[in-house]
């Protein structure tokens, strides 16, 4: 049981000088479904620097997971398809990479953790074998060497008596322990980038805290950049250096966590922040909720997708989709009325 104060955010300051390891430009991914064409990710651009922790936040259906899967090249085709854009990683555009090249990168230089601990591990295969698999593929370790290394990795992620765990099966472990195994597996080849897609959503609060602390520590130790995908605004505040807010397939706002939270550049971000009840002081009466329903991606409104639910909507918003513009130092947002609405908060 360790007591820590939050120091990570300070380290972010020195990150600017570090080089960019992932550059996503105008990424667009679509799905053909029975109900019509779904533009899950529509012209998304962002970048991740070395050792940086980027958070992508948004409600369900906003495209955050699809973005991550597109970067990893795990979009099931059919029905999905990446229709445009570039993903520059390690000097190469992943969209042009061949299957073999992608298999080289996945698990080697880029790792990923998923949401459901219960179903993300192969139920009929021992933990040891599953953790050892990337080691043998990417680092070419022998069976015995890979097993030893797997043991070390399990102890690194804080599993009690790791060597015995090597021969256990996933169903013999709790949710938290499995997520630790996932981290061990994803980090096994000390990747340059790790994507955590709602990695702790299915865990209890205390276990969630343990796993995230562990993730940050290991990333730091291996110098791995992190993309944390979540809908929990608290996690973003606590762990992320920068944050992208997504809505209906587009990035609506991006900036450092501090700026975005203190002075949100988009009405949607503001609305989200205000609809989360506060832990710090008792509030009674109405929460400032965002009206209306989550948009149906098959028939999005013209202009700004948030228009129908936005309290500051103008005619222009209904006609034209606002581009991303600077609203502060390293802080951009896509809203025609950002000046007016920011003035008032």
């Amino acid at each position, binding site marked *: 049981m360790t007591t820590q104060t939050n120091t990570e955010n300070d380290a972010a300051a020195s990150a600017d000088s570090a080089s960019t390891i992932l550059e996503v430009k105008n990424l667009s991914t679509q799905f053909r479904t029975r109900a019509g064409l779904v533009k899950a990710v529509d012209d998304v651009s962002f970048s991740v620097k070395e050792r940086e922790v980027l958070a992508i936040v948004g409600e369900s259906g906003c495209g955050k997971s699809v973005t991550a899967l597109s970067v990893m090249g795990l979009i099931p085709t059919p029905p999905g398809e990446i229709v445009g854009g570039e993903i520059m990683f390690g000097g190469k555009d992943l969209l042009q990479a061949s299957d073999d090249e992608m298999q080289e990168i996945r698990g080697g230089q880029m790792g990923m953790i998923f949401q459901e601990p219960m179903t993300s591990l*192969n139920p009929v295969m021992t933990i040891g074998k599953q953790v050892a698999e990337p080691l043998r593929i990417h680092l070419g370790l022998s069976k015995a060497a890979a097993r030893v290394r797997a043991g070390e990795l399990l102890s690194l992620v804080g599993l009690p008596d790791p060597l015995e765990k090597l021969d256990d099966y996933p*169903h013999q472990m709790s949710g938290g322990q499995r997520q630790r195994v996932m981290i061990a597996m994803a980090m096994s080849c000390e990747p340059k980038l790790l994507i955590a897609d709602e990695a702790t959503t299915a865990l209890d609060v205390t276990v969630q805290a343990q796993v995230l602390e562990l993730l940050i520590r290991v990333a730091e130790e291996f110098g791995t950049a992190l993309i944390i995908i979540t809908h929990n605004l608290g996690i973003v505040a606590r762990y992320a250096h920068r944050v992208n807010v997504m809505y209906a397939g587009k990035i609506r706002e991006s900036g450092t966590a501090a700026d975005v939270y203190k002075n949100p550049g988009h009405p949607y971000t503001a609305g989200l922040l205000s609809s989360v009840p506060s832990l710090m002081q008792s509030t009674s009466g109405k929460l400032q909720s965002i009206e209306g329903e989550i948009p149906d991606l098959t028939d999005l409104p013209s202009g700004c997708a948030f228009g129908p639910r936005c309290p500051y909507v103008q005619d222009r918003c209904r006609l034209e989709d606002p581009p991303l513009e600077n609203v502060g130092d390293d802080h951009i947002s896509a809203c025609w009325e950002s000046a007016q609405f920011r003035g008032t908060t």
Partner: protein
Amino acid sequence: MTRYLLSRLGQSIVVFLIVSVVVFFAVRTVPQDPIYALVGEDAEGYTPAQIETIREEFGLNRPLPVQYMSWVGDALKGDWGLSFQNKLPVIDLIKKRIPFTLTLAVGAMAISIVFGISTGVIAALTRNSKWDMMATGSAMFAVAVPEFWLALMMILFFGVTLGILPVYGAVLIWDDPIEGFRLLIMPAFALGIGGAATLMRQSRSSMLETMGEDYIRTARSKGVKEKTVIIVHALRNSLLPVVTILGLRIGRVLGGAVVIETMFSWPGLGQLAVSSLQKADYPVIMAIVMFSSAAVIIANFVTDIAYSYIDPRIRYA
């Protein structure tokens, strides 16, 4: 695991008892008078009095529950009673036929499994391609074809016109491997092809489902080659539901054997079942049905063990 198997064993014994009771009483309601199997249609040489004494000998006029109790008592001691056709012990009649039915059943199951699962997996992996279409189409075709029609077509085509396969004969594989195998091909194929179709559909749908699971995506995220993902991760998981329905297939195969054995004059229990049912030869019918249901129960039991061995979630319950 042992707890799971012990309870399965208990259940099987209960099922076996229920089968014996159900069949014992069902058979006796058949309107046939069993005596005529022994004395012949016109009962030449028998006086009515003698016919009555025979009924006594077989204990046919005792109340049914008493008959059942004595039957069970004898059966446990290994005495399956005398056949009504010739007052000879039923065991001798059954003993020689069991290996034939088993050989046929195993042959049919082998064909079902080999053709069924392989085409199913290929069809799933090449989803909506022409291979998939052909496999699904031929599965639809194989399920819809009446077995006896297929059997005779094969006899006439391969047996008579081409003459490459023997049309008649009954030799066990271990007695005369080459001839035994050549004899087995057609009946096993006719009996097994229906099963192959069902297994193909089942393994196709379970493979498709498995490929959509999260741990497959995790494997891919680890950079595992697609081929290894299929063989190492997907295949074993997708076989689990297929193994469970193997147990049920045995019942269908033994049922189908009745038609195929009659068609190929294959001296198995199915052929005997048809003649003894028509002659209402109770002891022989009881022996056949008890053996078949024992085979099905044991098969289900074996598939349970196999299932719990493959799936660690049960092995370490």
